[in-house]
């Protein structure tokens, strides 16, 4: 006969009520875990959707997301030539704030603009939820849905029109800015589309640089072209890129990865990271503090809930002191009595956890920050709940074991 079950059934209202209270605590624990995973996911979704095995960045920097990494575009072809490399792509990354929306001219958008190496990279790896990836070398953008844009929206940059052709879901920079993807050339065009003063200054700089070259001196009429932001005279250095994305021939084999990295290590101007390392760098930088905070919160909650379960189970056991004495006189083993207590704690923890998961499924989608609850994370919190329940019941078990059987004979 299961004593815990019958006892719980006898006072099911009280039991469920208490479990509900505990459930709310567990809901917050789940939310903490989910928010953390959301942070990690937000921070790394871009990295993952770029589908690179190795990120080549400026020597000594920690990659385009953490530092300002500037590489000469010629590195792309140098990397492509390495044995074991199947593909190398350029990648640019700039955060900008503009008001380019044709239908709402006043509205300022803050975005992180990524340049994709058209035509090898058309953004097919992106988690596009509406529309499509890029199909033209010029004038198309894929934007994150959090910007509030729709497929077909037209944006004005650099006196040109750019059409939103696709929307991604939750592709954000670690700073929380929505990502916008275009071809490399478009991205550089947009990034260079500074306010008019800056344009004039840039034009003067270009003219000056042009005059300093043999070409400029020989053909002064070229100066007229410096008005055009797309104009890159061949002798002028091309604008830098942020990183080179490298795919190796056998990405699963550590051997193949380390061969490519070994080759890159000898280059004086670059540093190479695997996607994992980039991810770790990103997490260390962007997610470290919130993670510590969330972990601390969760710890406090875990302690609170084990104390609460402990107190409730202890009270339930205290209520049964006389019954426990009677059971002892009947010859009930310590195992049976401890079992009754711990099963009640487990039942309370399990019920509270189940309610918490149910509440979470309803509530988390409405949270302002994204809450990602993987099955593994849910199971881990579930296991934690069982540990909490077990710890919480220890004091009650001690009480049950110490009950004097003689109490049953008195009153």
């Amino acid at each position: 006969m299961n004593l815990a079950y019958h006892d719980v059934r006898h006072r099911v209202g009280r039991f469920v009520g208490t479990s509900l209270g505990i459930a709310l605590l567990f809901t917050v624990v789940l939310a903490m875990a989910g928010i953390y995973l959301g942070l990690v996911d937000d921070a790394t979704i871009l990295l993952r959707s770029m589908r690179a095995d190795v990120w080549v960045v400026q020597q000594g920097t920690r990659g385009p997301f953490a530092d300002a990494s500037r590489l000469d575009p010629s590195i792309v072809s140098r990397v492509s030539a390495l044995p074991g490399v199947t593909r190398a792509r350029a990648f640019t990354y700039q955060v900008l704030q503009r008001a380019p929306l044709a239908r709402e001219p006043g509205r300022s958008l803050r975005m992180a603009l990524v340049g994709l190496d058209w035509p090898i990279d058309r953004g097919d790896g992106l988690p596009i939820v509406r529309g499509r990836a890029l199909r033209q070398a010029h004038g198309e953008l894929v934007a994150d849905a959090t910007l509030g844009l729709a497929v077909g929206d037209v944006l004005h940059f650099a006196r040109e029109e750019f059409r939103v052709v696709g929307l991604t879901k939750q592709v954000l920079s670690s700073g929380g800015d929505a990502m916008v993807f275009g071809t490399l050339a478009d991205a550089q065009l947009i990034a260079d589309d500074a306010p008019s003063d800056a344009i004039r200054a840039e034009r003067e700089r270009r003219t000056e640089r042009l005059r300093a070259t043999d070409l400029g001196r020989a053909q002064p009429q070229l100066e007229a072209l410096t008005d055009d932001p797309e104009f890159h005279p061949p002798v002028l250095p091309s604008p830098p890129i942020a990183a080179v994305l490298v795919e190796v021939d056998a990405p699963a084999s550590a051997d193949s990865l380390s061969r490519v990295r070994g080759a890159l290590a000898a280059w004086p101007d670059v540093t190479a990271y695997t996607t994992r390392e980039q991810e770790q760098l990103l997490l260390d930088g962007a997610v470290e503090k919130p993670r510590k905070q969330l972990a601390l919160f969760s710890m406090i909650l875990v302690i609170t809930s084990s104390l609460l379960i402990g107190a409730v189970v202890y009270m339930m056991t205290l209520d049964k002191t006389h019954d426990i004495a009677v059971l002892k006189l009947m010859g009930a083993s310590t195992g049976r009595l401890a079992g009754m207590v711990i099963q009640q704690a487990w039942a309370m923890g399990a019920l509270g956890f189940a309610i918490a998961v149910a509440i979470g499924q309803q509530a988390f989608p409405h949270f302002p920050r994204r809450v990602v609850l993987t099955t593994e994370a849910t199971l881990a919190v579930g296991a934690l709940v069982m540990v909490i329940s077990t710890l919480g019941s220890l004091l009650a078990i001690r009480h049950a074991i110490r009950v004097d059987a003689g109490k049953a004979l008195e009153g």
Partner: protein
Amino acid sequence: MTDALRAEHIFKHFGEGDTLVRALDDVSLTLEAGHVVALLGPSGAGKSTLVKALGLVSLPDTGKIWLEGELVVDDGRLLGSLTELRKRFLGFVFQRPNLIPFLTAQQNVELACEIGETASPRKRARELLEWLEVGHRAHAMPATMSGGEQQRVAIARALANRPRLVLADEPTAALDKVRGRAVMELFQRVAREQGAAVLVVTHDHRTLDVFDELHEMEDGKLGPARAA
């Protein structure tokens, strides 16, 4: 035939110096299987202390106790496992029924059968309740039963493990005269039909005719047995 219980030279003291209480002062007692024995005496005489000592609830300071010829307490020390001995030999009935409040009558008895490791606990519980004439209340919760009904269930529970010795400390104190007498008569049936030795502490002198033997206690000393 071996006695259900034999106790020799039992001493139990509480406190020391001025506050020393000789609750049991050289008590020796033999209980025969199939006999109902009453333990009488004024308040504070040591009756409950004796029941606790014989029931191995609160062991004596010194003395020996045999259950069914097996030495279980030697010089105040317990030989063997307490839960085992309780399961094998002992049944308790208390002043109040002390039923487990979250179990039905049937479940209360069944649990005792389970703990006592009797075969087919459900059937035995059912039989005991029928035998004690509370079969019709088998599925009632204790809170919904009368005091007399509860005490019958409590007796059924005490018998679950087929104890050789049933100890009852003022089992009728909470019952009215008629129900009190009915319970005492049940103890007689328990002794006769189940073959157990039954020791009942009582203050009720109107039911003494039920007993085979009477023992009087005073100041921790047990007087000689006399017939009812």
